[in-house]
């Protein structure tokens, strides 16, 4: 028996082996295979979406961060309100009605358009009046929003200027003179 006869004998011995599975069953099974293949893709897509949601949520300011900003805003407002009060002391002292020659004063009455103006408080702001009232003040002062610059007769007083005037009486005097000049 040579190789060809041997191969033929082996091949012929398997001629009765047949597959009887219908093609419809194979096609149905292939759908299950496709569904199995989709599971990792769906899991990956879900994981990516979840990761994106977590990343966006952590990057955006949440309630805690908002509270921190509000606290910082409130602290800044309190500081500026205190500075305004101190500046008001100086201005009221310098703007008291006095005749010419008296401490370099003026007859004109200085008006402060930003003082009390109903509804000037921005909603949600926690600006409080300083407890220590000025000794010579006769009016209640409600400072406006600290982020807004104050306009006094064509002159803009920035918070930084207000801070400087509150700290230095000399600077406040100079500023008062400038205000009087402007009023004239």
């Amino acid at each position: 028996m040579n190789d060809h006869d041997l191969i033929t004998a082996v091949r012929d011995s398997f001629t009765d082996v047949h597959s009887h599975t219908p093609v419809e069953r194979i096609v149905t099974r292939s759908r299950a295979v496709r569904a199995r293949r989709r599971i990792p893709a769906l899991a990956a897509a879900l994981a990516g979406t979840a990761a994106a949601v977590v990343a966006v949520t952590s990057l955006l300011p949440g309630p805690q961060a908002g509270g921190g900003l509000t606290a910082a805003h409130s602290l800044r407002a309190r500081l500026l309100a205190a500075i305004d009060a101190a500046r008001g002391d100086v201005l009221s002292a310098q703007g008291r009605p006095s005749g010419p020659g008296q401490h370099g004063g003026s007859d004109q009455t200085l008006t402060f358009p930003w003082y009390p103006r109903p509804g000037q408080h921005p909603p949600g702001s926690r600006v409080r009046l300083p407890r220590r009232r000025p000794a010579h003040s006769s009016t209640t002062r409600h400072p406006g929003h600290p982020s807004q610059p104050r306009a006094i007769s064509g002159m803009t007083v920035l918070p930084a200027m207000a801070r400087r005037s509150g700290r230095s009486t000399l600077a406040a005097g100079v500023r008062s003179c400038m205000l009087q000049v402007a009023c004239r």
Partner: protein
Amino acid sequence: VGAQRLDFAEFYRGARDECLRTVLVSVGDQDTAQELVDEAFARACASWRKVSRHPAPAAWVVRTALNVNISRWRRRRREVSVPDLGTVKDLPTAPGATDGPVDPRIMAALLQLPARQRQVIALRLFLDLDTGRTAEVLGVAPSMVKAHLARALAALRDHLVPTHEQERSS
């Protein structure tokens, strides 16, 4: 999609018997071979766009069936102690050697061959693959395929042909 389905159905009807015989020689059990071939054809149907462009789709199916068999053997090995994949003659579920449609003598001779030689015999005999394609499917060198085929035929001749006939022919 309908044309692809018809194309696959035509391929399935033409190649299912050859693939089943090839896998049967490799695994030694007809029921297992039928299950593996069905799974491999289902995967081929699921990826028919890719498989249809393969130079030998039947070889792809056989390779997939053998890979499925290896995966199942690995899964089963974690659960219970199973014998090595190549020793199919020791498997308790190998009735193909006795009560199958195949000649028991030939089946027993085939099952005594090493796994790689059985695969070479199956691919060369039942799928009519040449040496290069067989080497590509099995992932070995073509010279290794030739060596496995020569050793397998020699072993089969030793088992199937009586000694006195061998002496007479020589």
